[in-house]
């Protein structure tokens, strides 16, 4: 297809006044969410989802995407100035960013992270533009077995990449899949586990559950221990990085862009992982690794670039395969499906104006964010000083209204609160919410594809290893699953011998 006419189509969609406005709103809200610790992009997208129902689908996805990448920009501000990550993808930015601020170089750190984010974000969008359509065409040949393998791979990878205990992450995955089972059987339409409840007959709604697990849980967690935060009071001057800063950051930004993009495509929290990997890589490649952690600009530029291009990359599996790979992508899938749009191989050819409009809006959004973030940094710093006492009640109120407005159903508020409380105690016991929400969304896809595969193969599981793409995915998953076991056994053996030595010597 002629590429340029597609891009032109995209810009014609993205540049309508309404879409520009909502792209702007999304970017601002995203930056806000990123700046404020206590509410991550997942929670924000969840509670704004309900506002998008009455919008055009293109407008809805443009605004929600703005929130997502806006949060990546905003998160760095809090990391640099307060040493508290605004969201998890900016955890590593604290290491060198805050040190730089202490040395009076807050301006350079903020500047390079905004520019780095911009460059990487643009790179990511270009990659998305070139990679998603061919992948979508290839996926047209996928049948139920391939889809089963894809969901299995996705869930396994996410469980393995979740921090903490693997057993717990797997338990959360299975619990999420089980929650997805509640309601109607996707094939026969029979009712399961609904117990006569009209609300449950449609299954647990994605929005109430996501808002519970990521909004309410987050706030309860923050209420438990209120940190008095101190913003590093400094005159922020010289937002434009100097020549040497650029020289030091150019390669980290370039490497971070590429790395982030590809890690973003893989299942799991791409932005978070890619920022850690980028930091580790820059430290290894550096000529002065010992200076990392003392305020070197490479330690800010690389990870900030990586987490931004990862956000673009993470849209690829959703838009071309219909498989969300992280909690936030699950919400995007929900947003599209509310409008009756099924993301998947047919998405790009069926809704070109939506796909290309979305791509174009991401270019525009990245420019907006650069403009927003540099001159308005003072404003964001002031936002940071909003006391919790005002902030928390407002977030809670938004969550309540957001969920209620879905179907004017109080039962959904109860579901949200239930999952919020459950999520809080589970998190305290080391169980994370991300695998749960992803599994809940993928559950029906997984069940349908598994049952259809078995129907095709007349009950033989051989179908999953005899088809090449399917076999490759299964092999990859198996390898990935076995790897940590082998690795763990090795290190455990070492640990044991080390502690044995210690005991004998004492």
């Amino acid at each position: 297809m002629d590429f340029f006419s597609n891009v032109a189509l995209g810009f014609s969609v993205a540049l309508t006044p309404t879409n520009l406005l909502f792209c702007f709103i999304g970017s601002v809200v995203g930056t806000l969410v990123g700046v404020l610790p206590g509410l991550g992009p997942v929670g924000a997208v969840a509670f704004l989802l309900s506002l998008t129902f009455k919008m055009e689908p293109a407008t809805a996805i443009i605004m929600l995407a703005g929130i997502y990448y806006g949060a990546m920009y905003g998160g760095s501000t809090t990391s640099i100035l307060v040493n508290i990550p605004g969201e998890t993808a900016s955890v590593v930015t604290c290491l060198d960013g805050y040190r730089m601020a202490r040395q009076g170089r807050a301006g350079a750190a903020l500047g390079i992270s905004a520019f780095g984010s911009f460059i990487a974000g643009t790179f990511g969008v270009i990659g998305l533009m070139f990679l998603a359509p061919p992948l979508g065409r290839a996926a047209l040949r996928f049948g139920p077995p391939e889809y089963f393998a894809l969901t299995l791979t996705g869930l396994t990878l996410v469980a393995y990449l979740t921090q903490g205990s693997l057993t717990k992450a797997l338990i959360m995955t299975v619990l999420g899949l089980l929650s997805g089972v509640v309601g109607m059987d996707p094939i026969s339409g029979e009712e399961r586990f609904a117990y006569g409840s009209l609300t449950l007959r449609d299954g647990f709604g994605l929005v109430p559950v996501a808002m519970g697990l990521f909004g309410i849980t987050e706030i309860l967690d923050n209420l438990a221990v209120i940190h008095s935060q101190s913003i590093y009071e400094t005159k922020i001057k010289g937002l434009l990085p100097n020549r040497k800063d650029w020289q030091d950051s150019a390669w980290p930004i370039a490497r971070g862009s590429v790395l982030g993009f590809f890690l973003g495509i893989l299942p799991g929290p791409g932005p978070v992982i890619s920022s850690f990997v980028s930091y580790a890589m820059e430290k290894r490649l550096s000529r002065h690794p010992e200076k990392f952690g003392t305020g070197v600009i490479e330690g800010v530029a690389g990870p900030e670039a990586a987490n931004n291009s990862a956000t673009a990359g993470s849209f690829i599996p959703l838009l071309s395969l219909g498989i969300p790979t992280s909690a936030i992508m699950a919400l995007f899938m929900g947003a599209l499906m509310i409008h009756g749009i099924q993301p998947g191989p047919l998405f790009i050819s069926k809704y070109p104006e939506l796909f290309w409009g979305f791509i174009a809006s991401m270019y525009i959004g990245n420019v907006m964010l650069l403009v927003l973030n540099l001159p308005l940094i003072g404003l964001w710093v002031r936002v940071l000083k909003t006391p919790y006492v005002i902030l928390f009640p407002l977030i809670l109120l938004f969550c309540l209204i957001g969920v209620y407005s879905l179907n004017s159903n109080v039962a959904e508020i109860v579901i949200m609160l239930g999952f919020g409380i459950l999520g809080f105690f589970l998190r305290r016991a080391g169980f994370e919410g991300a695998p749960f929400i992803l599994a809940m969304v993928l559950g029906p896809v997984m069940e349908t594809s598994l049952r259809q595969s078995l129907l095709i193969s007349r009950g033989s599981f051989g179908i999953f290893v005899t088809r090449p793409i399917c076999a490759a995915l299964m092999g990859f998953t198996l390898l990935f699953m076995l790897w940590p076991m082998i690795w763990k056994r090795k290190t455990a053996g070492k640990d044991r011998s080390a502690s044995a030595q210690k005991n004998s010597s004492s």
Partner: protein
Amino acid sequence: MKRADVTIALILTGLAAFVLLEASKLSFGSMRVPRTAFFPVILATLLLMLSLILLGQALRGAPTGRGPERIEAEGWFRIGATLVALIGFALALERLGFLLSTLLLMVLLLRAIESLEWHKVFAVALATSLVAYALFGWLLGIPLPAGILGI
């Protein structure tokens, strides 16, 4: 940490058993023609296995992650009060109407999280309720329940 894990593992074992029991009332089908109960049974079996693994790990005292930050009594109070306010809102919403419930919710939350002075509490609560009403009810056109006061 260890005790929490044992408790959770036991609860999950119970949940898995419950799902298996409930699924037995639905039709399972066969490998050739899997039906409604097929997937839930697989999942419940997996959950059962994982719960037993967790139980084993906890009893052996294997580290299953770092312990959480200890919550002081004050923190528990804030959490408890917030939950009471939220559940109260859910119960009150369709009886008292949006405006009144929101006002009550905000008053409770503002007092609970950090004891602000009463006049400030009321001022902030009233302002947010009215702004929320205007924003969601009028501007965004979300149907908000009217209660006893008809607002």
